[in-house]
């Protein structure tokens, strides 16, 4: 890269480093590693001018760490919050999607009756979107790859008219044989799901360290088990959807997305537009869980339809579309072998996994957690990814690790049983102190504290005494535990601007998004802390590619750790400028000033003024600060950890499982807002409980059709199913990770839920649970096997 002439350094506050001279200036753009959804990527980062002092455990903080309520809670519960589906544009048309009624074959469409219906303004078919591909498939393809695949879109003056139009489209299917599950896809003579075959060209993916054969040879105890996990559906309350509007050659899109900039790139590329001619907006969001990481099919369809018909178009999936054609967590079959010494020391971990991906998606895979969670010199995982005639997978809260943890942690619990060891003690004896899979240090690891404090809170060591206390003779009580690891470091690039208005209120501007996690509140807390402002005076503005600086997708639990440091740096720069201005007003030196709760004070004096007074005196002089996220530490893995302890009651006559209590102890570095963080733990425990007990996409193998694509028949937990959840965080700031000390926490807490519950069920009934969800029929079947 050619050296860029550096602009003259702007006036900076006291804490700004001296500007280096041209000759000794270190490289400004460097490479750094960022872990996203279990995958590590190398990113270029522009080294920030400003590197705030890390907030270590001794830092005196007032707003960061406070239990402040979610700042948009009132809007949400009163219906004032505007979601993508609430966007109404003048003259807007509504789209309804016609979907494939079979899993394979070729569709022929007759849209004439639809076009003749009242209010119908137009139809999109394959010819309108040729060349736009998602997950390797042509959008609106006439070749059917899975039931529920979009075939055409009818646009009308209102949604009811569009739906009536869609129902009037005549779809003729020339059927072809399908393969909707592993058995069908891997059978001799199976129909070809993708042209290159039914097994991913990159399979089997083999990852290994050490020598597992030697490890198994050295083992004194060996166990082998097979575990199965289901296809789980994200079931976000807000389905995928977008509103698109053109003004000349410029496109505006409102989309329910986890990544406005990714969506912008996807749309610009597909439509041949410059990035500056595409604006993507997203304000409130009703959940994504990993399935909304780029432009959705709905966004492409809305954009193309709006261009073709010359009016804004709203295209949103209905619930059936959401449950069949919006991504899913892949099913897995995991064959696990563990070798160990009598004292529990692991000598080998072997996984052979098969994963049906659907028509595509990325290959998350259950294997990686086998390499990361427990110390073992010899680990080998083999993962085979198989294509099936079902909707493509999409990232789903800790993709891969959640499936893998069910196998790994269940096997570890089985091994503990075999060895006669406490499952917690077995984990302590195999405690990994460094990242074995990448052979480097951890920024921090406090899983041992999660084990200790989680067990203490749960009463793990007194559980034998509680076992007999059940309500009826046919109800058995059981206890189980499991652990997790997940990348939590976040990283660059992420940018933020903080600007002060003349009344002293502050706007935090960053192109991140709040999926409902509370990012809006957390980023405002970081800015308020740094500025010394009142939190109520700080507002976070998110979700607009045209008006906000770049921040990456809200995925991989990275937002707080990525954007938080950028916000802090921006706020610090703004504060320093404010202090420069206020110093003259207060007749003091800049370094004598401090601010808290909206008041600037002079050290050792009674002189004060509010931030509002200072800004007001400045008039329309705008105090602004820019900040960016710096690189991650070199040769360092930045993880989050957790340990869950579950108590269940199982009715051995009916097979019903009731989860009574979950204690979830987590290490995610500094917690910016304990209330919101605990809310993430609770949500993840409930989502994990659904995965463990209820949730399972069911297809009829013969017909190739989804059977339960409704929120009644796909059973997510209700509030009545919620156990007592005691979620809490251990430890404190991880200052190696970044200068806020915070790490990711949204995904890790779903990882250990299912294996912890399964272990508790096994403990209760005396039979291992090899498959989730643990429906009554599966529990009864295992009880029978156990005799």
């Amino acid at each position: 890269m050619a050296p860029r002439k550096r602009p003259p350094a702007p006036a900076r506050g006291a804490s700004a480093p001296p500007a280096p001279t041209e000759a000794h200036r270190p490289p400004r753009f460097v490479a750094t590693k960022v872990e996203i959804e279990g995958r590590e990527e190398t990113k270029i980062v522009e080294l920030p001018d400003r590197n705030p002092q890390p907030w270590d455990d001794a830092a005196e903080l007032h707003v960061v760490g406070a239990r402040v309520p979610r700042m948009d809670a009132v809007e949400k519960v009163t219906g004032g919050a505007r979601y993508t589906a609430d966007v109404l544009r003048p003259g807007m048309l509504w789209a309804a999607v016609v979907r494939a009624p079979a899993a394979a074959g070729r569709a022929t469409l007759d849209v004439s009756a639809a076009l003749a219906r009242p209010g119908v303004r137009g139809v999109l078919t394959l010819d309108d979107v040729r060349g736009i591909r998602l997950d390797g498939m042509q959008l609106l393809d006439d070749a059917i790859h899975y039931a529920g695949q979009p075939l055409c879109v009818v646009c009308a003056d209102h949604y009811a008219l569009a739906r009536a139009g869609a129902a009037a489209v005549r779809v003729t299917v020339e059927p072809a044989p399908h393969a909707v599950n592993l058995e069908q896809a891997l059978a001799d003579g199976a129909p070809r799901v993708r042209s290159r075959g039914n097994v991913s060209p990159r399979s089997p993916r083999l990852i290994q360290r050490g020598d597992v054969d030697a490890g198994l040879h050295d083992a004194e105890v060996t166990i082998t088990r097979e575990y199965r996990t289901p296809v789980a559906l994200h079931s976000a309350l807000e389905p995928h959807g977008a509103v698109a509007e053109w003004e000349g050659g410029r496109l505006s899109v409102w989309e329910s997305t986890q990544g406005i900039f990714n969506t912008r790139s996807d749309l610009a590329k597909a439509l041949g537009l410059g990035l500056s001619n595409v604006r993507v907006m997203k304000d409130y969001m009703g959940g994504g869980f990993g399935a909304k990481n780029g432009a959705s099919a709905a966004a492409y369809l809305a954009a193309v339809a709006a261009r073709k018909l010359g009016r804004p178009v709203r295209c949103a999936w209905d619930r059936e579309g959401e449950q069949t054609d919006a991504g899913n967590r892949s099913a897995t079959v995991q064959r696990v072998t563990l070798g160990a010494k009598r004292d529990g020391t692991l000598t080998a971990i072997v996984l052979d996994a098969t994963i049906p991906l659907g028509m595509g998606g990325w290959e998350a895979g259950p294997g990686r957690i086998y390499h990361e969670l427990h110390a073992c010199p010899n680990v080998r995982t083999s993962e085979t990814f198989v294509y099936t005639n079902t909707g493509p997978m999409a990232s789903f809260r800790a993709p891969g690790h959640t499936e893998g943890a069910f196998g790994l942690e269940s096997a570890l619990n089985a091994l503990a049983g075999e060895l006669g060891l406490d499952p917690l003690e077995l984990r302590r004896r195999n405690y990994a102190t460094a990242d074995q899979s990448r052979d480097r240090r951890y920024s921090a690891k406090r899983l041992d504290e999660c084990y200790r404090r989680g067990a203490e809170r749960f009463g793990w060591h007194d559980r034998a005494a509680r076992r007999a206390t059940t309500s009826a003779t046919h109800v058995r009580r059981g206890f189980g535990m499991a652990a997790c690891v997940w990348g939590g470091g976040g990283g660059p690039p992420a940018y933020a601007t903080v600007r002060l208005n003349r009344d002293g209120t502050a706007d935090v501007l960053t192109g991140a998004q709040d999926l409902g996690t509370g990012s809006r509140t957390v980023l405002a807390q970081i800015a308020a802390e740094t500025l010394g402002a009142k939190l109520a005076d700080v507002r976070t503005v998110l979700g607009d590619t045209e008006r906000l600086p770049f921040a990456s997708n809200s995925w991989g639990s990275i937002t707080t750790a990525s954007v938080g440091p950028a916000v802090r740096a921006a706020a610090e720069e703004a504060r320093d400028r404010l202090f420069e201005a206020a110093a003259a007003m207060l007749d003091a030196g800049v370094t004598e000033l401090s601010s808290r709760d909206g008041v600037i004070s002079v050290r050792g004096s009674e002189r004060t003024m509010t931030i509002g007074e200072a800004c007001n005196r400045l008039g329309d002089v705008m105090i602004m600060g820019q900040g960016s996220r710096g690189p991650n530490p070199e040769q360092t893995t930045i993880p989050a950890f957790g340990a869950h302890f579950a108590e269940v009651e199982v009715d051995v006559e009916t097979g019903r499982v009731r989860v009574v209590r979950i204690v979830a102890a987590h290490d995610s570095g500094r917690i910016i807002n304990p209330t919101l963080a605990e809310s993430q733990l609770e949500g993840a425990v409930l989502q994990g409980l659904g995965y463990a007990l209820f949730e399972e996409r069911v297809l009829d193998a013969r017909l190739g059709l989804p059977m339960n694509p409704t929120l009644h028949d796909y059973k997510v937990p209700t509030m009545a199913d919620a156990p007592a959840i005691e979620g809490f965080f251990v430890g404190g700031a991880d200052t190696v990770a970044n200068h806020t000390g915070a790490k990711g926490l949204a995904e890790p807490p779903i990882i250990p839920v299912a294996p912890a519950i399964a272990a508790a069920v096994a403990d209760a009934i005396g039979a291992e649970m090899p498959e989730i969800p643990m429906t009554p029929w599966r529990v009864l079947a295992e009880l029978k096997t156990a005799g």
Partner: protein
Amino acid sequence: MSPFTYHRATSTDDAAARLAGARAVPMGGGTDLLVAIDEGVVAPAQLVDLRGVPGADAVALDARGALRIGGAARVHDVARHPAVLERWPALAQACEAVGSPTLRQMGTMGGNLCQRPRCWYFRRGVSCFKNGGDECPAVDGENQYLAVIGGGPCHAVHPSDPAVALTALEATVEITSAGGTRTVPIAAFFVPPAEAPERETVVGPGEFVSAIGVPAVSAGGVQRYHKLMQREAWDFALVSIAAVRPAAGGVRMALGGVAPGPWRVNSSVEEDVASGGLDDDSISALAERALYDAQPLSKNGYKIEMAGALLRQAMRELAT
């Protein structure tokens, strides 16, 4: 979804006259009907809303102590009605077990009895006996929620909770049309699929459930309704049971979720339970006898075990 008109009936006669029209369908809370229309399972030309008919939602005792529940009475109101709670608690418990608070607030008793089965194949428009087809795709498919007893050629189960309690309470159903009113015992209200697999009840075109009668002789004593679901709320029964030993004597038990309609337990079993003096072994033997005719499909055998557990539990409760 085909277009339809909506009429809020002002009287029983008005409702009956409207329902005599072509493809007119009675509507209560619409919690099932509107979904079924949306799914394309039914395609009415006219909806006749019965909730505006004066007195149609009344729940009242008559002079002889029998209960009359208007067809448009809300499930929630029956669940919380003082006389129902006191004298027919099995019915109150069954109503309280329906769906969710919102569904109970919207749903009516007549609508609850007339809701269509939840069989996935029927609901998703796969050709089957219920929609004019000539095979049951569930037999070789996903039949985990379907009938283990009394099924064939259709194996769908009726989803109502109150119907199971009403069966144990030997209720009657009043059916009205432009031609007049008839009353049928609940045992004759549900039609076995061997007779007419395309429908579940004797309610024909032009007819609606105007009331449900619960006899005084079924009141009091020991009454229980137990419902096993996959999750704790907003779910249909995997298996349920209504078991009563009214103050006037006798034992009656009915199972839900196992058969095309509420499954009344064999009278010889009921008599043996009524005669009392049962130990654990005889209770188990009776439960097995009650399920003697059960023939599970490929994926629903667990329901027989669940039904056995509920029967044993109920017999123990009735014995004490």
